[in-house]
């Protein structure tokens, strides 16, 4: 494709760069943080700041002790310089938020309010946003949660994790670590030791949560990591749809985001968990960006329970993430729908695990990987059928789309079947955006970038259609923006 001939003025160049990542600004706010480095004292300090009960501190310390003897996993197809865990600060919070906690929406620091407005997440309970309740997590703390009272009328608990520890300790204690134990893996153990905040959801028996619940994660402070923990419990016969979004400033340093998400669906319950991940991906040359090393797992504990993960991963320098389902209850269903896009120097190693334990369990995996520039995209997925999982079924489809000659796509399926009745289907494809497709669009008057965005969105359609409406629109735009400059 011919290069655009005209030269751009300095202002235009700046605008183009800006456009590449729209959320790269920094909020100038007084931050309280613990000095870099990890030790028992730091963990005690975090626990103390949050006024936690002894059992939780003990749990953290157990995880820390274990973590010290663990080694960072190296099996993923990603490469990055060694992380020095002593250079990271494990707790940073806006002073204003620490002082009073995330109590009243009216009392939020105006600077924080402005930040979320700029991100397109106004922290108000407006009519227009009546369908979505938001928990806003800023660095290590939750700064506000909307519609809490309204939800409470139905018995739905939606609050920050810290608040849940104080207000609903019995629930937290009962379920924390039951899906992702503190022993699970290097990053999960680290998270268990130092997690600072996150969201907590409990939907009582038979309640269909009337609005989308969402958490918006924002990393702001430099040289810090974000280690949030989310726990969602859907009691018998309940339903909840939960969304998460995330952004971070543009910085030359890499920042670690090691989160844990646990979902528990009891009998006949359904949890729909959607992610639009747009952490700062680093610049064209791979400088900066978030390391997104996340453990997400759902347990279909009860019969006929149903968990769906839908993710649109466009951000982060490195993504290491495998939202999984443990299909314990008979007739339970697990689903994983994923679009992962890597451009420039981004690397993603993502996929899922479907562990079939109960009878008649069913899982579906639809993965769409898009690689542009020097982006590397790996789908890594495991389907495991245990001996007792009679009549288990899985359908997997993994498609890759390559843009440009330097991008890469890899598919690594692991299949482990210990029941003779299991039915598994696996389809995979790799295609390239063809010059013929581009020309076809351009011949109809559509410019090349728009054409790529169209083709990519078409490729990802089966996954995007799983997202709640307003997020599908956002995700579509995001896929387009992330690919700007991928052609030409």
């Amino acid at each position: 494709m011919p290069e655009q001939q005209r030269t751009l003025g300095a202002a235009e160049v700046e605008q183009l760069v800006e456009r590449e990542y729209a959320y790269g600004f920094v909020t100038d706010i007084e931050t309280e943080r613990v000095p870099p480095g990890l030790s028992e004292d730091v963990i005690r300090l975090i626990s103390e700041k949050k006024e936690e009960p002894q059992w939780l501190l003990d749990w953290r310390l157990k995880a820390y002790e274990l973590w010290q003897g663990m080694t960072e996993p190296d099996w993923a197809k990603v490469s990055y310089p060694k992380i020095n865990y002593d250079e990271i600060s494990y707790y940073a919070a806006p002073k204003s938020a620490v002082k009073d906690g995330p109590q009243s929406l009216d009392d939020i620091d105006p600077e924080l309010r402005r930040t979320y407005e700029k991100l397109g997440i106004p922290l108000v309970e407006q009519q227009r946003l009546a369908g979505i309740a938001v928990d806003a997590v800023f660095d290590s703390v939750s700064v506000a949660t909307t519609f809490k009272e309204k939800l409470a009328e139905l018995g739905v608990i939606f609050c920050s994790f810290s608040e849940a520890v104080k207000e609903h300790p019995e629930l937290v204690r009962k379920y924390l670590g039951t899906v992702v134990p503190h022993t699970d893996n290097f990053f999960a153990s680290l998270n268990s030791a130092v997690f600072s905040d996150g969201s907590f959801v409990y939907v009582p028996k038979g309640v269909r949560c009337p609005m989308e619940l969402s958490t918006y994660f924002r990393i702001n402070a430099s040289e810090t990591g974000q280690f949030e923990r989310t726990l969602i419990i859907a009691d018998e016969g309940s339903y909840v749809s939960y969304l998460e979004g995330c952004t971070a400033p543009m910085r030359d340093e890499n920042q670690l985001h090691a989160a844990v998400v646990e979902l528990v669906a009891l009998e006949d319950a359904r949890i729909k968990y959607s992610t639009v991940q747009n952490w700062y991906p680093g610049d064209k040359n791979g400088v900066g960006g978030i390391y997104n090393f996340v453990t997400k797992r759902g347990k279909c504990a009860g019969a006929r329970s149903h968990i769906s993960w839908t993710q649109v991963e466009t951000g982060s320098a490195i993504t290491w993430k495998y939202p999984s389902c443990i299909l314990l209850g008979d007739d339970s269903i697990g689903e994983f729908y994923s679009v992962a896009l890597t451009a420039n120097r981004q690397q993603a190693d993502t996929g899922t695990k479907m562990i079939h334990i109960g009878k008649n369990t069913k899982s579906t995996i639809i993965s769409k990987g898009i690689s542009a520039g020097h982006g590397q995209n790996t789908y890594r997925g495991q389907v495991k059928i245990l001996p007792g999982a009679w009549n288990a079924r899985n359908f997997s489809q993994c498609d890759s789309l390559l843009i440009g000659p330097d991008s890469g796509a890899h598919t690594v399926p692991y299949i482990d079947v210990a029941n003779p009745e299991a039915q598994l289907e696996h389809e995979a494809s790799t295609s390239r955006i063809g010059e013929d497709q581009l020309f076809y669009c351009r011949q109809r008057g559509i410019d090349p970038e728009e054409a790529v965005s169209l083709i990519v969105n078409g490729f990802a359609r089966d996954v995007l259609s799983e997202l709640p409406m307003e997020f599908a629109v956002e995700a579509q735009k995001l896929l387009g923006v992330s690919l700007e400059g991928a052609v030409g």
Partner: protein
Amino acid sequence: MTPLLEICGLHVEVEGREILRGLDLEIPLGETHAVMGPNGSGKSTLAHVIAGREGYEITGGIIRYQGEDIAEMEPEERARKGVFLAFQYPVEIPGVNNTYFLKAAVNEIRKHRDQPELDAVDFLSLMKERVKLLDFDVDLIKRPVNEGFSGGEKKRNEILQMTVLEPTLGVLDETDSGLDIDALRIVAEGVNRMRSPERSFLVITHYQRLLDHIVPDRVHVLQDGRIVESGGRDLAHRLEAEGYTRPAAVPA
């Protein structure tokens, strides 16, 4: 008056191989011209060069549209100025809804003509009207662009797009191939309805059959990368009877 399309002594190379070798062609506004020629003579190459496809290197000669040299013009810009190519082999775009695609194209073109964009409702009613005229299966407009379409459906989809985009120059590259006689008649009617003093067509075909339905003002014979003969509509009949026997004037 300047012709709508004016091609003089055009030489075009594809992957280092010369395909068009001094091609001359003029199409005045309001006229429909046919280009006929054997397989491999360069018909599709001509169509692609007019539309501005990359990889077709102009090594000599001139190509003007509306009096403007368009050799360096991007394909989307040509499209916005009214050049439409009905592809010999229409391309599939998986997952992209046909209606959505066409709406994007229409609005892109309208934007560049300073016309207001059509909203979904207006567009859909326009689309429905055109679909009916072409006897096109309504279900197809909801499906992804050309995905799983039969050969004939793809060709008809091209003409549907043309009737919605209302170009100034419509280039039809072997639109008749893959169409049965009924479909051929419907497509020809669609094209004929669009013929006007403000619009020209370049109808590329291998057979004269299509020209019984779309009667051209002029017929040109393309052989070995150049127009070797031009004439009235009777030329098409003669070619049908005699075949493309006439050798190129100067062998390569």
